């Protein structure tokens, strides 16, 4: 920041109002935070960024008293605090706005704003009239017009988020923590939110702001703290950082680093046929995806790249019919697939290996055999009776082909390693003989050996003519594993890269949006994408 520096002292230089010193938190042996130091000064908006699993949410929960740190301490206004729960943190003046609205949908707007702190009349009873009056005034201050006696659940998500903001404002907090508050907001609501946030900052409130929309950071925030893998990486003025620097320290990549060939098990580019296996056009999901187009040919691996929140998982879910789409069309082998139906997508030959295999895929207490057989049960049974022999044969074939390491087909899946669990899931989908295989982070969370096995399996499947869509956060995996890479940005396809002559650092630059030639979605954030200092100047 040079020319726009104002006469007021730089933001974020006062004594911290809220800080953590060496905070460590583990869950079942997994480190979510390792010795994280974080300082929030009064009168600043502090961005907290990091990819999935970086520890942002855990840090926020430590700051707001939801979790107690295993080691290290939380200090508020210079004093060490041991919050025993969210109410302790709220009592001292820390408010939180969560990503998913954490209010009670069945209660009225006014009730939600004042829950736990309702105005009383002289008999000690809740003064409903004055509560509604105060709620109305708050909403007016936020320039939101809505009926405060209306049930919260009847409002749109954006309006609900504004109610959460009103609640945070009504407590006169010294610290307001906003965990992805904009993910469900319309452009106009984002503008309102930012106006309110700046007003709070000017009153001396310290704000923590988490968002995956990078543009928003430069538009709103003064400083940034970057976390990666549960560790503190960087804190500093945002204006002194470029997008590329921010993204590369989030992802842990040196900007100059050029990936060495052969870091993954992927072979050379795949044989392609010209007739597309799947054509996706104009997929729209309100607030999430904006006209996604995608073509995959048989024998081709198309990578989907993008930062967290860019819409990668949403894209494959929408194709698979598991996320409601507002517009768009999917055709497989020239035939149109009816939208919003997983069953139709499946029978058309689309399979999805989801990102979260624990929650959405594997059934840990069933055997390997039963887990594989689940997908084919409807097809392999005649009049409801399942042919055991056929299933056994099928399961055996896949266990051999995918080299699933289990003591027997009867072993429970929960006893297998992460990599083998993943292979069981892949086997399950292969049983359905898909035309298109959507793989969402297929190698996340599995050990190195299993990872390369899964990678070569993907390769092999493509060589056998399967059309593959591969989502990965690992750039090497995309650059080497995919033939083409589609880069998503804020829910739209920003660019398409040919991975043959691509280096990881070029991909990194595309992810950061530096190479973007398209303009970002009109007015979504209202901020310029290339010149952070401009918006900063306006905000001051």
């Amino acid at each position, binding site marked *: 920041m040079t020319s726009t520096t104002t006469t007021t002292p730089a933001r974020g230089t006062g004594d911290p109002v809220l800080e953590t010193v060496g905070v460590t938190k583990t869950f079942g042996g997994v480190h979510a935070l390792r010795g994280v130091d974080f300082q929030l000064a009064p009168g600043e908006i502090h961005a907290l960024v990091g990819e999935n699993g970086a520890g942002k949410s855990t840090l926020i929960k430590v700051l707001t008293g939801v979790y107690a740190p295993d080691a290290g301490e939380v200090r508020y206004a210079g004093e060490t605090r041991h919050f025993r729960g969210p109410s302790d943190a709220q009592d001292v003046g820390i408010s*939180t706005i969560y990503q998913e609205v954490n209010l009670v949908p069945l209660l009225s707007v006014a009730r939600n704003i004042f829950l*736990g702190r309702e105005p009383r009349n002289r008999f000690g009873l*809740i003064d409903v009239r004055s509560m509604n009056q105060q709620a109305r005034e708050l909403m007016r201050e936020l320039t939101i017009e809505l*009926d405060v006696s209306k049930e919260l659940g009847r409002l*749109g*998500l954006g309006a609900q988020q504004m109610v959460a903001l009103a609640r945070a404002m009504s407590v006169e907090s010294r610290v307001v923590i906003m965990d992805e508050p904009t993910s469900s907001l319309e452009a106009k609501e984002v503008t309102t939110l930012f106006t309110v946030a700046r007003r709070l900052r000017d009153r001396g409130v310290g704000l923590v702001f988490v968002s995956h929309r990078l543009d928003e950071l430069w538009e709103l925030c003064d400083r940034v703290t970057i976390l990666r893998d549960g560790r503190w990486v960087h804190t500093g003025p945002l204006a002194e950082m470029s997008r590329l620097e921010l993204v590369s320290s989030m992802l842990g990549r040196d900007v100059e680093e050029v990936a060495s060939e052969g870091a993954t098990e992927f072979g050379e580019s795949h044989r392609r046929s010209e007739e597309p296996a799947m054509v996706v056009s104009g997929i729209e999901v309100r607030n999430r995806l904006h006209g996604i187009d995608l073509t995959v040919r048989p024998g081709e691996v198309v990578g989907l790249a993008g930062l967290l929140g860019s819409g990668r998982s949403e894209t494959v879910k929408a194709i698979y019919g598991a996320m409601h789409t507002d517009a768009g069309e999917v055709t497989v082998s020239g035939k149109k697939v009816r939208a919003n139906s997983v069953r139709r997508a499946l029978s058309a030959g689309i399979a999805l290996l989801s990102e979260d295999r624990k929650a959405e895929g594997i059934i840990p207490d069933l055997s390997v055999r039963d887990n594989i057989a689940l997908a084919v049960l409807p097809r392999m049974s005649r009049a409801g009776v399942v042919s055991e022999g056929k299933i056994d044969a099928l399961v055996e074939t896949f266990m051999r082909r995918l080299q699933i390491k289990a003591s027997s087909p009867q072993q429970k899946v929960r006893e297998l390693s992460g990599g083998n669990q993943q292979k069981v899931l892949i086997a399950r989908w292969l049983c359905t003989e898909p035309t298109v295989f959507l793989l969402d982070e297929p190698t996340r969370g599995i050990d190195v050996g299993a990872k390369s096995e899964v990678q070569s399996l993907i390769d092999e499947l493509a060589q056998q003519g399967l059309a593959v869509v591969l989502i990965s956060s690992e750039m090497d995996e995309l650059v080497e594993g995919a033939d083409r890479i589609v880069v998503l940005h804020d829910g739209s396809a920003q660019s398409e890269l040919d991975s043959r002559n691509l280096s990881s650092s070029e991909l990194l630059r595309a992810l950061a949006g530096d190479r973007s030639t398209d303009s970002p979605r009109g007015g979504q954030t209202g901020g310029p994408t290339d010149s952070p200092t401009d918006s900063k100047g306006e905000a001051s």
Partner: protein
Amino acid sequence: MSATEVDPATTNSPEAAMASRARFAALVQRQGAFAIFVLVMVVASFSFDSFLSRGNLTGIAVQASFLAMLALGMTFVIMTGGIDLSVGSVFALGGVLAAWGSQHGTLVAFALPLGVCGLIGLVQGLVIARGGLPPFIVTLAGLLFARGLLLLLTDEGAKTYKVPAGSSFRKLAQSDLLGVPYPVLLVVLFFAIGALVLHRTSYGASVLAIGGQEDAAELMGLPVQRTKVLTYVASALLAGFGGIMIASYTSSGVTILGVGLELEAIAAVVLGGTLLTGGAGTILGSLIGVLLLQVIKNVINQVGSLDSDWQAVVSGSILLGVVTLQRWLTRAERT
């Protein structure tokens, strides 16, 4: 939907249609039991001359008052998203303790059952709130415990304690004020207090918040555990008080009472429009649910040719119908 609404979700037409359907759902939810109640009343008063007689109506009201006490406590429990299966047994235990206690004075007749029942509620509440155990299991244990205690106290139910002839304890349920029996007055009073507590105290707000979204209530810093404990204590106390009333009404501690009464209380609450998942409902609705069940019993008793077992069949069918309707309508609302 007002014109000043900025919420974009309600401005386009499919959502608007959904909103009107949601309003209809809410209406059925809140007033469905009342509509059926009025219908049954009208049909009954045309069918039976004696139905609208003062004696019959008073009878219905007094008979309903015992169940009403249980239903009031149950309303709060269900609003937190819980369930209390113990109230039928606790009710019977309260009655026996009150009858036994009345032999040692009216004060004992009140204090003993309330103390014991309150304690049962406290233990249940603590285990549910602190231990995080499912209310269904905990209160099922409470049901068995209270019923077992009752059988121990009464030689397996063979011994019936009598309220002494001259005891002032009998007046509780056998007197009236301006022709309105005390139990009915007490129910009106308790339900009025209940409505005030639910809508105008922070405890009531916590109850609704917990039932509506427990995680959110926790994150908003509401006293979730304390609210739950209080709710189970209140439910047990109200059931015990119902027992005290029935002991006074029958002048004895009848040991076979209250079997399955917890289920009737749940039925009344759900008929009255309280969501079984918690978070929404009205106190008045539960009272109407109780009255509806009682009127059905009364009507079937008046049809001489019908076996009284038809009561349960009819009540069950109506319950199923109402709940199905609620479910069907609220699904549209909550997608």
